[in-house]
């Protein structure tokens, strides 16, 4: 435990100091961290899912608080929570269906079964959801009496190898953790291979002799373009440099190394060049539930230019970037202002920043936002690891492909309450909509505090 605690603290301080760059790296590290949290969590005899959920949630909340702007963290935490629930549900269903023969089988067998349990179990679960209340959820609030009731056995946790498979239940406890870790491993795998999966679709979108415009640097975009190149497509790339960090320079260099015909332009030349462009392909920081995109600064301008000239605006995003939250005031609330030193040299401007003379207030303001919000209507297509999608479809897609059944855990604080209050087998559509409203409502509250003050409300 202290070991994980140290890892968590380390990761949090890294997040806080903005030392991890890129949402893919963040997502992967979050997943890995949560995996070790899960493997180190001591599960009680019963109700293991609740214990796991609780420990993941506790860590997850801290991670999200460390850098609320990095939405990938929250996305991964939600995914992991979802995995735990799914696995628990499938196990419970299997047990309730009286499939005792498989439940007592060897761990090796379990590993084999892992390939299909989610689907089959989910199906069974869906059928039995209305009637069954899994013990884990039933006892979320009062897990203490439960675990106290059966004090013996298996408190040492699931990963102890030497345990004999004494009873059906104790093997289940090990199995849950095992399954969850397996599934998280898959998630990590997914995250790290999302580039390839997206890149596989490149040939479907990039055609011969096209001109592609991109801004800044994104690894997904790089892989995507290179994949098309490998498939013998010949096309040209316009790279907009992406002030103030000029990561476009790096991308241009990388593209040239891979043998692509590249043109580097300034951000301000985008509008002039867009008429020659066949397609804009960019990466994203996060994709919100309404299909809006949080993207590196400058992209909104590109999107508007593309719309003006009817150029398709394509956003590449791994599934870890899909976020079930609705953006509210994203330009401010989901943005981060970085240091003005990226824009100008302090030394040269130090005399403009002398507060000793004049009115004693700075006359020079330097604003350096990190992100832009691109409205859903400006996006023509999202390409994720599961294929291409229309923006209006993103919410659905999140539900269908990412969190394939009831996606709990959007709102951590009320999580336990809601699992008990809202019936388990929520209809998926309404669940997402409700969550949206929930979140929106929460933001509204905060907004009212911000803008109107409590006293006035």
């Amino acid at each position, binding site marked *: 435990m202290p070991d994980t605690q140290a890892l968590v603290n380390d990761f949090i301080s890294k997040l806080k*100091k903005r030392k991890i760059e890129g949402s893919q790296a963040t997502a992967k590290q979050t997943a890995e961290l949560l995996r070790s949290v899960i493997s180190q969590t001591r599960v009680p005899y019963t109700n293991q899912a609740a214990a796991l959920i609780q420990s993941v949630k506790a860590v997850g909340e801290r991670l999200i608080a460390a850098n609320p702007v990095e939405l990938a963290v929250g996305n991964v935490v939600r995914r992991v929570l979802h995995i735990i629930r799914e696995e628990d549900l499938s196990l419970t269903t299997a047990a309730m269906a009286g499939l005792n023969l498989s439940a007592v089988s060897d761990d090796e067998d379990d590993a084999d079964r892992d390939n299909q349990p989610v689907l089959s179990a989910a199906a069974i679960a869906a059928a039995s959801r209305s009637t069954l209340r899994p013990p884990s959820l039933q006892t979320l609030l009062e897990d203490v009496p439960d675990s106290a009731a059966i004090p013996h056995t298996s408190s040492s946790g699931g990963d102890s190898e030497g345990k004999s498979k004494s009873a059906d239940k104790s093997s289940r406890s090990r199995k849950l953790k095992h399954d969850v870790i397996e599934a998280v491993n898959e998630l990590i795998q997914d995250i790290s291979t999302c580039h390839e999966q997206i890149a596989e679709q490149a040939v479907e979108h990039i055609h011969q002799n096209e001109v592609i415009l991109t801004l800044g640097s994104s690894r997904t975009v790089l892989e995507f373009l290179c994949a098309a190149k490998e498939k013998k497509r010949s096309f040209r790339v316009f790279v907009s440099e992406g002030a103030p960090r000029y990561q476009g320079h790096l991308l241009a260099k990388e593209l040239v190394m891979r043998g692509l015909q590249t043109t580097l332009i300034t951000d301000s030349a985008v509008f002039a060049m867009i008429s020659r462009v066949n397609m804009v392909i960019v990466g994203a920081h996060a994709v919100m539930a309404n299909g809006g995109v949080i993207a590196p600064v400058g992209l909104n301008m590109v999107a508007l230019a593309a719309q003006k000239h009817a150029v398709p605006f394509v956003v590449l995003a791994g599934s870890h970037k899909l976020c079930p939250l609705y953006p509210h005031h994203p330009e401010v609330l989901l943005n981060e202002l970085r240091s003005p030193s990226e824009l100008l040299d302090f030394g040269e401007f130090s005399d403009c920043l002398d507060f000793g*003379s004049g009115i004693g207030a*700075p006359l020079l303001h330097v604003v350096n936002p990190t992100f832009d919000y691109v409205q859903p209507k400006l996006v023509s297509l999202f390409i994720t690891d599961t294929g291409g999608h229309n923006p209006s479809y993103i919410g659905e897609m999140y539900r269908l492909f990412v969190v394939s059944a009831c996606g709990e855990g959007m709102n951590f604080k009320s999580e336990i309450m809601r699992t008990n209050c809202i019936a388990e087998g929520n209809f998926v559509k309404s669940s997402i909509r409700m969550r949206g409203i929930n979140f929106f409502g929460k933001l509204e509250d905060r907004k009212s505090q*911000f803008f109107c003050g409590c006293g006035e409300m």
Partner: protein
Amino acid sequence: MGAQKKSATARVSEDQEELARNPLQAILLADSFATTFRPITLERPKVLLPLVNIPMIDYTLAWLESAGVEEVFVFCCAHSKQVIDYLESSRWSSQPNFSVTTIESHNSISAGDALRLIYERNVIHGDFVLISGDTVSNMSLTQVLQEHKERRKKDANAIMTMVVKKSKPSPITQQSRLGTDELFMAINPVTKQLLCYEDKAEHSKGFISLDKTLIADNPSIILHNDKQDCYIDVCSQEVLSLFTDNFDYQHLRRHFVKGLLVDDIMGYKIFTHEIHSSYAARIDNFRSYDTISKDIIQRWTYPFVPDILCGSSAIKVERQGTYRASDVTLSRSAHIGSFTFIGQGTKIGNDTKISHSVVGEGCTIGSNVTIEGSYIWNNVTIEDGCQLRHAIVCDGVIMKSGAVLQPGVILSFKVVVGQQFVVPAYSKVSLLQQPTQQDSDEELEYADNTSGTGELRYKLNGDIAADLSETAYELGTGGVGYIWSVFEGAQDEEWKHSVAPIPKDKLVKLMLDKDEDEEQLTQDGNVLSASGELKADSDDNGSEDDDNADSRDDYGFFEKEVEATFLRAVHENVKVDHAVLEVNALRLSYNMASVDCAGAIFYSMMKLAVESPHHSASELHRNAADIITKWVKLLKSFLHDIDEEIEVILKFEEMCLESAKEFAALFPQVLHLLYDKEILQEDAILRWADEKEGADESDKVFLKSSEKFVQWLKEAEEEDEDD
């Protein structure tokens, strides 16, 4: 109470792994050893003062941690208990891979003492970062450490690397944006070696002096006045032992750095590292507190900005750089301007206007209050209709309705300002009385035992009204606190280091002064030619190159100075001895020989004689005689041998030809006068006559006119010989 007393928290960890790999260590001085933040620092150590609502030391520690420092020794002296308590309760005590160890001392009065104590503890095992607890930075140490290590490999004498940053000083006030004096540094642009460090350069003179050997040793030197010293130093262990060896080193810069630069016996070298994109600055006075707060709010210190640093409370940055905590109660009609920070739990009433300010946690601000450029700390109550401009208001202050703070006011802890009371500009108000004894030169941040203040404050809390009733009127009805008086002399300087911007009239005045200076400079410009600014202070052999043009310019300048001195001496009836001293001082500073002095003095005397009113030649002669009689001693003190006397005659000749033609007719008379007054010996005159014998006709004019006199002298001599 002794320096040796080991505090409970001072753990000297000597793990075996340290031997294998030296973790990067840092020494953080949690005491500024200065009184610039009084009266606030009488009650709380400077490093714990909130800077945009976060204690200064947190910025420093957060930076050290992220820069890869693993072990920090916090040296606390003033209010050491408060610092230690704070560190123990903060998150810093439980960080993995980052240990914060406090070293406590009660009798250290300077940074030098602190470093000597740390040396005794023997806790530093390699290169370390030396920083004071009031430094804000976001620079990366990797590069500077690497540079430092590489230099060390090549040259074991490169013991220190100093971090500097470009920052232009104000051309009007001659001070940097941090309120410190303009700093001159001479740096070798290739090796980055620091050659000269002058922070108290005398602007009035308009020059600084460099050792001539510097120019000889270094192929090129760049003299900077736009570099700001960040007070972040990467030091080798030798620095500590140097402090121990030189027990008179107190101040890091004034003594240590300058000492090393001047003293080349040991050959230790200091290098500089300039940072460009990152930020570093030290809070030295109220002006820098203001400036750095604004820099933080403008996010130059990213990622060390309030919304990221305060983990617990959600602070959001809104448009226009307004930072607002999540549970601020804000009236609908209140107007929060740009670059303002509002802390948790603060309530703000109707029609209140706040701009460019920091308001801490738990404050209550009434209606119709105007707050501009002020720093309001925690739990402050400001009632309706108050006005605050460029003030610092500490914890627990109560401002009754209608009170006004004029620019530059500092209200220390728990002061109460009475109704409608106007606190005058630049006043410092505290519940504690101003200490009467003034430590004039080495100023200390309250270095006594902390328990003293604790008791005092307790007493104040217990019975404020009775205790302070007598002075209550100082702050209006119901007000509590003493207004500290400003010491004579400091009054003029107050505006320089205050939080308030420099008032317009001061700026105008400075500008006018400046113009005058410049005029003077341009006047002197022809005298102060090429070499004027950079004068090598060579040894006493200045006369060797009297002939070249440069030194002649110097001579002209010197002559003017001597003349001015002489005139002053005449008008103010200065004693001859004093005048001699003054001229001698001039001689030394201009590196002249006494021959030049004699010439210059004589020139001034004659000029005075010409300039004083006269109608005829005889009157002029009388004038000259008067002056010579009066100042004969002055002149004589520079006439040690015959050469100098001849110089005087030559000078006189020159004058008669050029500047004071009136004397031409009087030449023999004056010569006679000088002889009479025993200023000139006959040998000198005869030698002069001999020398002139061989010169051209035109040069002989005066020789001829004084032929009779010379003749007479010669005869007298012969007669003497005859006798």
